[in-house]
């Protein structure tokens, strides 16, 4: 891909950050269970290629990740209870019932190690992902990226599971779809 095009796309994205940070635009998808909120935005391949390219990933190496069906997620614990969520317990479910797991960041990291990606780039990757297991104290929130194991066509729902002292819970994000391009 033309490097200038990548830079332009990425700069536009940066500009978008500052604009959105000012006006606090809402996410494209959001759902809540009690006071726990999950938000998501689909991520395209151009922006991810630019992001990781700027952190030292060769374009060919990051391509499988950039082209995977990916999202940026944000999760906020507005409840009074501590909660824990594991990415391995999340599932995307298509309209015809096909279930797809999310690929854990550790699985991607195995690829980066095999490909000889620099340690600095791997650190940036690791911390930019939605972590595979997170405990949220009341008031905590985290954002990060994640990908499906395989893409789903059309729209699908994402079931995110978490547990607290009261038991297991689900948050369902409806009408998600993989970004095009």
């Amino acid at each position: 891909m033309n490097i200038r095009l990548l830079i332009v796309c990425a700069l536009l994205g940066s500009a978008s950050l500052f604009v959105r940070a000012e006006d606090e635009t809402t996410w494209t998808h959001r759902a809540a269970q009690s006071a726990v909120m999950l938000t998501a935005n689909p991520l395209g391949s151009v922006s991810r290629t630019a992001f990781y390219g700027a952190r030292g990933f060769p374009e060919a190496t990051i391509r499988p990740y950039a082209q995977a069906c990916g999202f940026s997620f944000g999760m906020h614990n507005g409840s009074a209870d501590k909660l824990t969520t594991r990415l391995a317990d999340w599932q995307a479910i298509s309209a015809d019932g096909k279930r797809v797991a999310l690929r854990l960041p550790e699985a991607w990291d195995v690829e980066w190690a095999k490909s000889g990606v620099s340690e600095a780039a791997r650190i940036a990757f690791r911390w930019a992902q939605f972590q595979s297991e997170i405990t949220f104290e009341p008031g905590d929130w985290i954002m990060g990226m994640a990908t499906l194991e395989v893409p789903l066509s059309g729209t699908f729902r994402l079931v995110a599971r978490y547990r607290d002292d009261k038991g297991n819970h689900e948050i369902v994000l409806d009408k998600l779809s993989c970004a095009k391009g």
Partner: protein
Amino acid sequence: MKSFSTSFPVPKAERRRFLYASAGLGLLALAPILRAQGRGMTSLPAPMPAPALRLLDSDGKPVDLAGYRGKVVLVNFWATWCPPCRKEFPSLARLRKRFKSAEFEVLAVNVGEDPDMVFSFTGITEFPVLFDRDSKAMATWPVKGLPTTFVVDRQGRLALKAVGGREFDDPEIVAIIKQLLNS
């Protein structure tokens, strides 16, 4: 901490690197900043000794958390590509100014980046910025995502924790730090 020169313009290569770096932020920005920053900090029920933290600052000088014993220290793990980290960063300086340097300090621990890139974002800071280039120091702390912030009490114990962005000069946080200083 040595002051950096403020005689801009920044060299071309550095500017380009910063543009690339900040450009990447657009990706996370495609998912806009959460409307709700987190609030407050969580008191850790059984304060344990803070893990060791010995890193170089922007000037290449070693900084050791143990040297701050007797002060309350806020330790913030962050990176320039992390939108909530960037958003909360100015509030660290505002918080730092609320207290005397003899009793309170902020240590901002940058993870995985180089000082030139970081300086392009921070400029001169009111507090030390430390560099954990290989994230080995952070790995010894109970961090599960960026940003994560701890407050270490006068006895060198982890007293408070916050995962996700905060406005650190929020009255709730200022009050709880005052409590620690007075305890």
